[in-house]
């Protein structure tokens, strides 16, 4: 009986340890997760939910490149792994040199429990690029996704050719 009593505490300790491990697994699975797919040209690029920068001091933002005249399609997916539904206002803006130049999307998002919600929008470079593009300057736009209190940022890099594609008229003779 005494041996059983001693082992009982050992088994209880093991049960507590297993409980902690199960909480880590279960709690890690639960939550609201978002990922973003950016498609420019042929290859889509996805930022998974665990790849968003957490270091506010030295953040690293993902970027997508696009040629002038092209467009980038964004697909934002929110997965709700909770027992209650999730709702938030989503606003997507684009800014250049810390100045907001366009609102790409502004709408509420509601996702029922253990379901996924998806939003799509397109960024057309012709709408954001100035008419007189300077080929000696680089153009980087920040796309800011605000979902409730959460902010996600990605960079849209305009890929300029090394020289103007427009052929200048011949010099007069």
């Amino acid at each position, binding site marked *: 009986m005494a041996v059983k009593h001693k082992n009982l*505490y*050992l088994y*209880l*300790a093991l049960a*507590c*340890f297993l409980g902690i491990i199960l909480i880590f697994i279960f*709690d890690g699975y639960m939550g609201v997760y978002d990922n973003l797919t950016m498609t420019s040209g042929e290859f889509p690029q996805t930022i998974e939910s665990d790849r968003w920068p957490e270091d506010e001091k030295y953040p690293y933002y993902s970027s997508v490149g696009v040629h002038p005249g092209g467009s980038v399609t964004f697909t934002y997916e929110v997965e709700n792994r909770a027992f209650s539904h999730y709702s938030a206002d989503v606003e997507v803006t684009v800014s250049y040199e810390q100045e907001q130049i366009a609102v790409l999307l502004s709408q509420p998002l509601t996702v029922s429990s253990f379901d996924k919600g998806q939003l799509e929008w397109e960024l057309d470079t012709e709408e954001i690029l100035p008419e007189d593009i300077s080929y000696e300057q680089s153009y980087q736009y920040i796309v800011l996704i605000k979902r409730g209190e959460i902010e996600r940022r990605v960079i849209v890099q305009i890929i300029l050719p090394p020289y103007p594609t427009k052929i200048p008229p011949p010099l007069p003779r």
Partner: protein
Amino acid sequence: MKLEYVLYGFGILFCIAGVGYLAAEYVRYLSEIGKIASLLLTVGLFTCLGKYFEGLGW
């Protein structure tokens, strides 16, 4: 013989430090309820271990 015990002690300390570090990293992503439940289970774990070793005559 004593040197072996010193090495055991270092090994145990490194194990505890490693597990503690990993736990601290995981705890950052836990919800408030998960943190409290984990804390209670940790208290229960050490209590039961203490009782077990007490029963062994330590």
